């Protein structure tokens, strides 16, 4: 804003003047079937953990951004912003609290909105929460509800479920690129291996490739071990401005960049059904803004609600050519591989509480970068990429964290 001509100097100026955003605290509940905990219990538990971790008081909080995807249809509860603020004991203080909804990418979207609110200079300290309570419903009724992340009138109406749409993508992908089912199953095997060491994960059992290959069919070619579970869970972060972080001597992880992009709602409308265009567009923006390279990324958390998406994401995030993710899934994505993926256990093993996923990914990335990831700690973790996706790829939200 002060110089127009000399772009190098200009960058420096912008860096000095701009307000960097830091994550200074994080917390989450266990993910899983948490029958003794309600939507509001979960949200408050995660929020308090994050606030405690950050060492702040509720009076320091300027605003709350709460992510949730399906409380309206599952729990018949809307007005989630007020619910979260109220049961966090913050209503009397009048702290603004908004619910952000972007389907299964609600968490990433809330993180992004909170980031922008600090970046703009409006706020100094913002709490980002994500919560989903999916087991308050019996039997297959959940499939009716979860299918609302698709195009209800033109996909779900005709018998499509999220798993069925992922299966349609998987079949064509495997056909066109000669990819064996085993490559998809390996993604789940990796998730479970990592999840086995994450105390917050829903599944802590290791999975053999045989178990992953021979599980009960859900939507052929996908079986139960290709599909993330239905989970209850909540996660929260405390974000703070650069000035707050420095003035109060907080340790934090910087958000280098935040990006989001959209694609068609229905899979059939897209030019290529196995290309996640929202992911491709968002990741380009994210790297451009972060000014780092793919080779700088120490690990990724990606939105693998179905195993096939894990492979597509490796490709569309730019870590493999189209059809070649199969070359990464056996060794490279492991904790000690060249590009570790889902050290948390991912959606398959850590769990998939829709609206909370994106916030949970950031909680895990924060712990890694702070060196507090316990048994899953990646050595010298410097930069993390987190990818949170809505529906079958209709939106992707990407954050790059580090330092």
């Amino acid at each position, binding site marked *: 804003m002060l110089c127009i001509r000399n772009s190098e100097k200009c960058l420096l100026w912008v860096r000095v003047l701009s307000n960097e955003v830091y994550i200074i605290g994080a917390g989450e509940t266990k993910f899983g079937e948490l029958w003794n905990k309600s939507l509001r219990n979960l949200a408050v538990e995660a929020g308090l953990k994050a606030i405690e971790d950050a060492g702040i008081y509720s009076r320091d909080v300027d605003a709350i951004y709460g992510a949730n995807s399906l409380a309206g249809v599952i729990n018949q509860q809307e007005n989630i912003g007020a619910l979260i603020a109220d049961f966090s004991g913050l209503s009397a203080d009048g702290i603004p609290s908004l619910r952000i909804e972007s389907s299964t990418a609600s968490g990433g979207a809330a993180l992004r909105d909170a980031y922008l609110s600090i970046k703009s200079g409006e706020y100094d300290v913002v709490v980002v929460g994500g919560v989903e309570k999916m087991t308050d419903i019996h039997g297959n009724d959940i499939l009716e509800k979860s299918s609302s992340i698709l195009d209800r009138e033109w996909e779900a109406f*005709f018998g499509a479920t999220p798993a069925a749409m992922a299966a349609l993508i998987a079949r064509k992908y495997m056909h066109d690129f000669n990819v064996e089912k085993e490559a998809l199953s390996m993604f789940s095997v990796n998730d479970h291996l990592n999840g086995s060491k994450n105390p917050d994960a829903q599944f802590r059992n290791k999975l053999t490739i045989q178990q992953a290959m021979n599980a009960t069919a859900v939507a052929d070619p996908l079986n139960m071990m290709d599909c993330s579970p239905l989970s209850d869970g909540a996660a929260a972060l405390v974000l703070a401005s650069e000035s707050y972080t420095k003035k109060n001597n907080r340790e934090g992880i910087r958000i280098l960049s935040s990006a989001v992009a959209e694609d068609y709602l229905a899979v059939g409308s897209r030019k290529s059904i196995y290309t996640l265009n929202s992911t491709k567009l968002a990741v380009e923006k994210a790297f451009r803004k972060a000014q780092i390279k793919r080779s700088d990324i120490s690990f990724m958390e990606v939105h693998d609600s179905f195993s096939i998406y894990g492979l597509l994401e490796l490709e569309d995030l730019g870590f493999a050519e189209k059809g070649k993710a199969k070359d990464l899934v056996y060794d490279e994505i492991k904790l000690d591989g060249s590009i570790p993926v889902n050290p948390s256990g991912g959606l398959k093993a850590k769990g998939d509480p829709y609206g909370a996923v994106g916030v949970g990914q950031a909680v895990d990335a924060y712990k890694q970068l702070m060196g507090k990831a316990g048994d899953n700690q990646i050595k010298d973790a410097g930069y993390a990429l987190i990818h949170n996706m809505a529906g079958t790829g209709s939106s992707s939200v990407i954050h790059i964290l580090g330092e």
Partner: protein
Amino acid sequence: MTELSRIWRETEYRYNLIGFKCKNCGNSYFPPRDICPTCHRESIGKMEKVKFSGNGEVLSYTIVHDAPPSFKRQVPYVLALIKLVEGPVITAQIVDCAPEDVDIGTKVHTVFRKIRQDGESGIIEYGYKFVIDS
């Protein structure tokens, strides 16, 4: 759960496989949309209804084993992405065949069928499904 007006609103398109064609670029769309994603505002007032032939081929397919209550009685069923000869790709079931008979590239055409029965209201909804060309 399903309101009658909501079903009725889409009936014309679902019963007759009617979509829209953009008179600005010539692209055809299904499901119906008011704006052409290629031409944007240039397409305003230039989207016209078009009835599709109902002929197409299987772009991809799956056999659904785990279905919502309103489809439970049809399990397992074949769900497919069908590329119509006019261009649009639509999501629909393929019926009157063994799942093994379906493959990528299989030629199919539409039939008018019962789609689902709503569990709570008991309303039966109709629309298109596909069968393999003989």
